[in-house]
């Protein structure tokens, strides 16, 4: 007899099989759900509550979502990559299905009724003849301290009633009624306030530090210095700001690392020592029929996460134990880095998540947690809250990497693509805490016993980092894709929403548009002709239909199309942009069609797509980190402008229903396609191809002057 192979558990559940780590059912009539993924404004908590309530057959008001903590939550790695529904959602659905079955089995014993005769309504378990019990009644008799078996099947789609509905987000009422839930609003009585001294000159080290005037500030508790790390601790925020200012006045900075020439990033990116990786190849032998090759170079600048809230954390030492409150996207990985820096076992550290503002990737959240821990060591027993300044947030948090992309497309005599080479130059897009040496936290590089700062690494395919979305989705007969990862990192880079996907899709979709237009083929038709995936075709067809693609021309107005399947494995998104280009570019309307598989909360999906589309518009038209050879000069909102209400396009979204398909994250799907669609619409309006982001008035004027 063959032993049946153990059933395959969803990835998050396989890593955390204990049912009680995900779910607790209380005799008081509620269900506590503990996901390892965290709320970052994407509505994940509500979507997960919907999945749990649906699978358990309880009203959603009975579901209490617990904040993630290393003391109690499953370890789900990082909340990133639009994977929360795929990972946490699948695991939770599985857990709830299994818990439901465990309770049904117990109820069956209790009531003397066969399981398949039982029904559950809002936690009440009913059998024939009106016999009832409930989750709540059975809760204390059932231990969920057991591992998931994996042999339970979740409900069929048709029997799900909450999933697929636009349930209102459970975190929103608190946010409109000023009930504090942000970490920035958390300062329990007795909390002290810390500020950390950071250089304005990039890479400069702290030298002499005169502390007298900072110590003279009323309310100062301590000044901490450890090598190049220094900070103040005060009774109030006001005092902490004053003491930090005084400390700045007493600081001498030594050295620094020169920054690239901002106006010639392409030369910088191409001239650095780099690791070359061939990402993907297809075909091979050169096609003899190449009639000409179109080579184009595209670029994007460094982009800031630019969270509306500066990063913030609280930490408290009690003897050898440390408690940290953080808005990190990865509490367990942060804990490993903290332990490494402090030389303590991870068990001595509890890291607990609290919501911060939207981060869109790896911002200062993890760094500020170490800042708080280092300061709080000096105030044993009293929590220290550290909040960065706006300038710190804009200059010391990691940036989305600048990129240079070159595409060479070989065309045959009929203009068909027969060869394709896509080359990327830039820093890697990953320097998050990852559990590996050295720790990735900013202050770790400043301490007396400093850890080195490595050049950012890169996620491997299939998701990819800088190379995300660089492998063509079109069925060209041959291609080669390569990435030159820079080994120097004068400007610290890490994950920013969509990673390399934005620039790669911009490059691919721009050159596709160019090839189609040169041969007077409709760009939508060209794409459809090269796509076999029906779901890809469906979003292009839906977007162009909804936007009444290629309708009557109006002067100064252009339309452009952009398409991608995020990470080549995630959500599909096609976008038609309508721009007005008179003097400067104004995006008037974006029409999106998206296929995210099963949409757990359709309004949540739309919200994420809209947000991605607006952020992409902001990146495409306005955003670039400014710097001189010594320092980042984008220190605030006037030197790093982002899109404003008066500049926001209308957004129309077609969501293609796919309730029978695996759910795919929506938050990053729009970034590349929107950027590309805007660029192509600018060409449609003005007849010039803009290949360097952002699309500024100055760049357009240059292009138009050179074209005439």
């Amino acid at each position, binding site marked *: 007899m063959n032993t049946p192979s153990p059933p395959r558990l969803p990835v998050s559940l396989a890593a955390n099989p204990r049912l009680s780590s995900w779910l607790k059912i209380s005799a008081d009539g509620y269900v506590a759900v503990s996901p390892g993924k965290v709320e970052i404004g994407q509505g994940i908590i509500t979507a997960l509550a919907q999945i749990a309530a649906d699978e358990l057959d309880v009203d959603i008001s009975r579901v209490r979502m617990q904040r993630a903590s290393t003391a109690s939550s499953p370890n789900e790695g990082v909340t990133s990559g639009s994977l929360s529904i795929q990972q946490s959602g699948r695991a939770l659905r599985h857990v709830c299905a299994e818990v439901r079955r465990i309770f049904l089995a117990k109820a069956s014993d209790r009531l003397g009724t066969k399981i398949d005769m039982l029904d559950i309504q809002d936690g009440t378990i009913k059998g024939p003849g009106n016999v009832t019990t409930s989750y709540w009644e059975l809760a204390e008799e059932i231990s969920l301290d057991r591992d998931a078996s994996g042999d339970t099947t979740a409900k069929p789609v048709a029997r799900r009633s909450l999933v697929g509905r636009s349930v209102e987000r459970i975190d929103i009422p608190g946010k409109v009624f000023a009930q504090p839930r942000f970490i920035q609003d958390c300062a329990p009585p007795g909390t002290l306030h810390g500020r950390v001294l950071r250089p304005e000159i990039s890479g400069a080290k702290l030298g002499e530090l005169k502390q007298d005037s900072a110590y003279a500030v009323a309310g100062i508790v301590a000044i901490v210095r450890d090598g190049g790390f220094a900070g103040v601790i005060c009774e109030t925020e006001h005092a902490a700001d004053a003491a930090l200012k005084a400390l700045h006045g007493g600081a001498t900075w030594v050295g620094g690392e020169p920054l690239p020439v901002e106006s010639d990033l392409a030369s910088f990116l191409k001239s650095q020592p780099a690791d070359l990786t061939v990402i993907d190849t297809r075909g091979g032998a050169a096609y003899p029929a190449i009639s000409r090759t179109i080579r184009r170079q595209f670029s994007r600048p460094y982009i800031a996460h630019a969270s509306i809230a500066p990063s913030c954390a609280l930490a408290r030492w009690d003897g050898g134990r440390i408690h940290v409150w953080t808005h990190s996207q990865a509490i367990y990985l942060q804990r490993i880095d903290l332990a490494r820096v402090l030389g303590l076992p991870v068990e001595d550290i509890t890291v607990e998540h609290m919501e911060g503002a*939207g981060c869109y990737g790896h911002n200062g959240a993890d760094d500020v947690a170490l800042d708080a821990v280092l300061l709080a060591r000096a105030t044993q027993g009293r929590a220290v809250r550290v909040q960065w300044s706006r300038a710190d947030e804009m200059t010391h948090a990691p940036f989305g990497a600048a990129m240079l992309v070159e595409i060479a497309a070989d065309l045959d005599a009929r203009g068909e693509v027969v060869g394709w080479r896509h080359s990327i130059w830039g820093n890697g897009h990953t320097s998050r805490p990852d559990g590996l040496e050295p720790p990735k936290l900013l202050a770790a590089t400043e301490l007396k016993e400093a850890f080195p700062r490595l050049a950012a690494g890169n996620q491997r395919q299939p998701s990819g980092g800088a190379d995300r979305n660089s492998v063509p989705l079109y069925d060209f007969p041959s291609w080669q894709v390569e990435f030159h990862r820079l080994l120097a990192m004068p400007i610290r880079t890490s994950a920013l929403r969509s990673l390399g996907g934005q620039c790669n899709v911009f490059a691919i979709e721009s050159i596709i548009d160019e090839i189609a237009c040169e041969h007077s083929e409709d760009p939508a038709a060209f794409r459809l002709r090269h796509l076999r995936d029906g779901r890809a075709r469906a979003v292009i067809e839906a977007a162009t239909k909804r936007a009444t693609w290629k309708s009557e021309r109006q002067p100064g107005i252009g339309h452009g199309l952009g398409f991608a399947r995020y990470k080549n494995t995630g959500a599909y998104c096609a976008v038609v942009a309508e721009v007005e280009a008179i003097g400067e570019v104004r995006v008037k309307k974006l029409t999106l069609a998206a296929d995210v598989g099963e949409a757990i909360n359709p309004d949540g999906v739309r919200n994420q797509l809209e947000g991605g589309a607006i952020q992409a518009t902001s990146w495409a038209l306005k955003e670039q980190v400014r710097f001189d050879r010594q320092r980042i000069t984008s220190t605030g909102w006037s030197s790093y402008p982002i899109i404003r209400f008066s500049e926001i396009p209308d957004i129309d979204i077609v969501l293609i229903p796919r309730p029978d398909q695996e759910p795919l994250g929506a938050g990053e799907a729009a970034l590349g396609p929107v950027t590309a669609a805007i660029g192509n619409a600018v060409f449609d309006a003005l007849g010039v191809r803009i290949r360097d982001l952002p699309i500024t008035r100055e760049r357009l004027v240059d292009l138009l002057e050179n074209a005439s």
Partner: protein
Amino acid sequence: MPQIRFRLNGTETAVDADPERSLLDILRSELGLTGPHFGCGAGECGTCNVIVGNRAVNSCDMPLWSAEGKDITTLEGLGSAERPHPLQRAFIAEQAMQCGYCISGILMSAAALLRQNPSPSADEVKAALDRNLCRCGSHNRIVRAVLRAAREMSAG
């Protein structure tokens, strides 16, 4: 230190503090309010907005002394879960946020707009909110929510 008096969310309030400190700092650290948020400290993002008199202003670069005798409303004074302001109801109905950190300032700007212009057009709403930044891209929902609240208020 001189005592600064003002009316805060309908209540007479007196503060003994350095009059050069920002109103935001006083509201948050001395008076325990968390509605107004710190965003930039330079009056550039609007997340700290409060209503002074009838106008939405940045509280982060408003010195405490300038609050003397003023009528100040923060998000805490706009409404409550039990007695929500139409704007609060509308922001829930339109799910008009993602992270929500900027929303308290935006609600205050919107409330000030509706006091001055009870039936704004979409463009007027956008103009009134143009000094409020939202990084998540919830702008269109926010505009819809303000228009919804205006309709509800004018319907009585």
